[in-house]
C-alpha cells in the first residue's frame, strides 16, 4: 500500500507549508513591512510587544481572531465563503515547486515537477478567480469595482511574467526548477538575462497588488477593494494569501535569477533565506518610494511597454540559444 504513505507525506507536507508560510512569511513579513517603512520615514516601528516588537503580528492575529464574523445581509453566502478559501489556497500551492536548499540525498523541495515553472504560472492565475468571487459576493459597489479592476490587472500582468519565465526556461533548457538552479552553477541568470529579471520583478509587484500597482486596494479611494466586507478570521486569511503570494514570487525570482540556494561557504538554506529577504527588502523599498499608478497608466504600461520588451527579449534569447547550439 505505497499510496497511503504518499498521501500521508502529502498531508504532512501541506501542514508544513501552511504553518511555515503562515509564521515565517506573514508574521515576519508584516512586521518587516512596518519596521522598514518606519525606518524609511524616520520613525520607530512597533516596539512594545515582545523584544523590539517581534511579537506584534502575533498580537494582531489574536486580536483579529476575536473579532465578530460579519456577513453582509444580501451577500451571496456560498460565494462569499468560498472566495476566502480559493485565494490563500492558490497562494500556498505556489510553494510546492520551490527548492529551498539541498541535502546530501537531493534537493529540498516538496515535489520536483518536471513542469515546475508552468505550474507556478498556473497557480498564480488561480488567484484571479478567487478575487472576482470575493468582489462579487460582497454585494458592495466598491468591492465589485475593486475586484474587477484587480482581475483585469492580474490578467494583464500574467503575460509579461509568463514570458520572463519562458525566457529563463529557454536558457536553462528545462521547465523544472531544480534543473534551473543546477544550471546556474557558474553564472547566475541575472547576469545573462537582466531584462527578464526586471520584467519579472515588475510583473510580480503587479500580481500581488503592491504599490505602485495597488489601486485595487487603494485605501484612500476604495476602502479596501475586494476584501472590504471581510472581517476577523477571513481578513486574516486574505492577508495570508497576499503576503504568501509575495513571498512565493520573491522565492521564484531567487530560484530563477539569483542562483537559488547556491553560495560558497554557508549552508544552502541560509543562502536561500538571505537572498529571499534581500528581494523582500527591495519589494518593500519600492512600496514606500513610489506613488500609485492610475488604472489606464498601469494597463498601458503592461500592454504597450512590458509585453513588447519581453517578447523582444525572448526572440533575441532564442536567436542566441540556437546560434550557440550550432
Amino acid at each position: 500500500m505505497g499510496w497511503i504513505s504518499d498521501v500521508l507525506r502529502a498531508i504532512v507536507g501541506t501542514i508544513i507549508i501552511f504553518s511555515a508560510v503562515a509564521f515565517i512569511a506573514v508574521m515576519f513579513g508584516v512586521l518587516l513591512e512596518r519596521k522598514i517603512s518606519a525606518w524609511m520615514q524616520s520613525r520607530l516601528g512597533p516596539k512594545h510587544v515582545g523584544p523590539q516588537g517581534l511579537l506584534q503580528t502575533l498580537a494582531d492575529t489574536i486580536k483579529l481572531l476575536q473579532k465578530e464574523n460579519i456577513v453582509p445581509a444580501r451577500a451571496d453566502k456560498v460565494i462569499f465563503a468560498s472566495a476566502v478559501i480559493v485565494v490563500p489556497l492558490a497562494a500556498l500551492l505556489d510553494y510546492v515547486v520551490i527548492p529551498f536548499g539541498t541535502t546530501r540525498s537531493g534537493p529540498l523541495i516538496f515535489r520536483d515537477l518536471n513542469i515546475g515553472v508552468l505550474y507556478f504560472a498556473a497557480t498564480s492565475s488561480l488567484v484571479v478567480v478567487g478575487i472576482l468571487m470575493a468582489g462579487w459576493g460582497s454585494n458592495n459597489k466598491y468591492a465589485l469595482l475593486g475586484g474587477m479592476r484587480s482581475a483585469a490587472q492580474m490578467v494583464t500582468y500574467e503575460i509579461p511574467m509568463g514570458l520572463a519565465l519562458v525566457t529563463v526556461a529557454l536558457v536553462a533548457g528545462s521547465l523544472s526548477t531544480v534543473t534551473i538552479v543546477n544550471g546556474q552553477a557558474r553564472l547566475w541568470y541575472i547576469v545573462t538575462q537582466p531584462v527578464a529579471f526586471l520584467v519579472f520583478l515588475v510583473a510580480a509587484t503587479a500580481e500581488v497588488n503592491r504599490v505602485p500597482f495597488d489601486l485595487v486596494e487603494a485605501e484612500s479611494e476604495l476602502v479596501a477593494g475586494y476584501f472590504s466586507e471581510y472581517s476577523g478570521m477571513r481578513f486574516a486569511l486574505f492577508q495570508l494569501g497576499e503576503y504568501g503570494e509575495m513571498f512565493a514570487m520573491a522565492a521564484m525570482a531567487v530560484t530563477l535569477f539569483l542562483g537559488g540556494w547556491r553560495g560558497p561557504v554557508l549552508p544552502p538554506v541560509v543562502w536561500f533565506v538571505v537572498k529571499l529577504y534581500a528581494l523582500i527588502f527591495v519589494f518593500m523599498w519600492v512600496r514606500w518610494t513610489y506613488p500609485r499608478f492610475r488604472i489606464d497608466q498601469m494597463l498601458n504600461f503592461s500592454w504597450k511597454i512590458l509585453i513588447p520588451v519581453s517578447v523582444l527579449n525572448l526572440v533575441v534569447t532564442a536567436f542566441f540559444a540556437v546560434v550557440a547550439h550550432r
Partner: protein
Amino acid sequence: MTGEAIAFYILAAVTLGSAVVVVTSGNIVHSAAALVPGFLGVTGLYILLNAEFVAGIQVLIYAGAITVLILFAIMLTEGGTGLGGRQRNEQALVGATVAAAMAVLLIIVATRTGWTAGGGTLPPYTPGAIGQSFLRQNILVFEGTSIVLLVSLMGAIMTARRED
C-alpha cells in the same frame, strides 16, 4: 483498490459533481464558480494519464483565464442582476431525454468495443517531446493555430468595442 483507482474515482466524482452544479444551478454565478472544481478535476485526470504539460496548460487557460472571461461576461450583462429569471426553457424534458440517450449510447459503444493496446511507451519528459513534435511533424497545425488566435483576438476586440 490501488491508490491510482481511488484517486481516479475521487477526481471523477469531483468533475461530474461540479458539472451537475454547472448545468442545473438556478444562479448563474454559482454555475460559473462551479466550473473551477470541474476543470481542476479534469486536470487531475490528465495527471493520472501522464500528461503533465496538458494538465498545466489546462489549469493556466481553463481555470485561470476562461473562467475569468465567463465571470466578466456575466457581470457585464444582465446575468448579474436578473438572477430571478427562469434558467431552463420549455425543452427541458426533451433535452434531458436526448442527453441521457447520448450518454447511454456512448457508454455502450465504449464498453463493448475491444480496444487494442498500442506499442511503445510515453517519453518521460513530456514538455520537451511536445515541443519537438510541434516543430517537426505538427508545425503546420502550430502555425495555423497561431493565425486563428490572432484572428479571434482581433475579432473579439472589434466585436465588443463600443461604437462611440
